[in-house]
């Protein structure tokens, strides 16, 4: 199969990934039905995760692993990418998801999400941190984007 990522990009990413401090678990949820981009997303994530030992990728079928999909709140949203922290066998979910194939301009989002989770810090202001810590009810943020 032809690679999705050009060689020069691969080199750049490998270098950027030298800065990854801690392990990241990427969980990709795919579906056999109604998912035009599931295969490409899978290939893209495989190629990216190969570029660092800090990144682990697991691929899950929505139907076969329905309980896991429910746990990660991704039911019906294939392709769904979960970016989680990994410490040994322990996976910590920060609630970070990308739905769809992260292509075009969104490829940078993919790389930045990996770096963010690996760094284990949001990089946000004190004020935002205080506000979020004090939240008592769930918050659902949906940021709509396009690749171009």
């Amino acid at each position: 199969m032809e690679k999705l990522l050009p060689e020069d990009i691969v080199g750049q990413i490998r270098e950027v990934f030298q800065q990854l401090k801690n392990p990241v678990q990427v969980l990709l949820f795919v579906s056999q039905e109604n998912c035009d981009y599931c295969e490409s997303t899978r290939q893209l994530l495989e190629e990216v995760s190969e570029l660092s030992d800090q990144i682990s990728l697991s691929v899950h079928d929505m139907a076969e692993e329905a309980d896991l999909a429910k746990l990660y709140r991704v039911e019906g949203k294939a392709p769904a990418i979960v970016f989680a922290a990994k410490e040994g066998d322990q996976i910590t979910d920060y609630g970070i998801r990308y739905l769809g194939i992260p292509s075009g301009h969104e490829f940078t989002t993919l790389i930045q999400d990996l770096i963010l989770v690996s760094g284990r810090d949001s990089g946000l202001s004190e004020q935002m941190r205080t506000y979020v810590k004090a939240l008592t009810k769930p918050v659902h943020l949906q940021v709509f984007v396009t690749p171009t």
Partner: protein
Amino acid sequence: MVLAEGVEATEFQELSEKYMISGVPDTVINDSAGRVVGAVPEQNMLAELMRALGK
């Protein structure tokens, strides 16, 4: 407590239509309790979260 999803608008058309997404980025907070169109400074996002969710 926080679920933050980046949603590729063309692949998730029903969602895009539901929230009438035209320009991106467009951030929907709690099913339209709040909304931020465009890329904004963190302060603006915080202000809208506070407004939408209550302080």
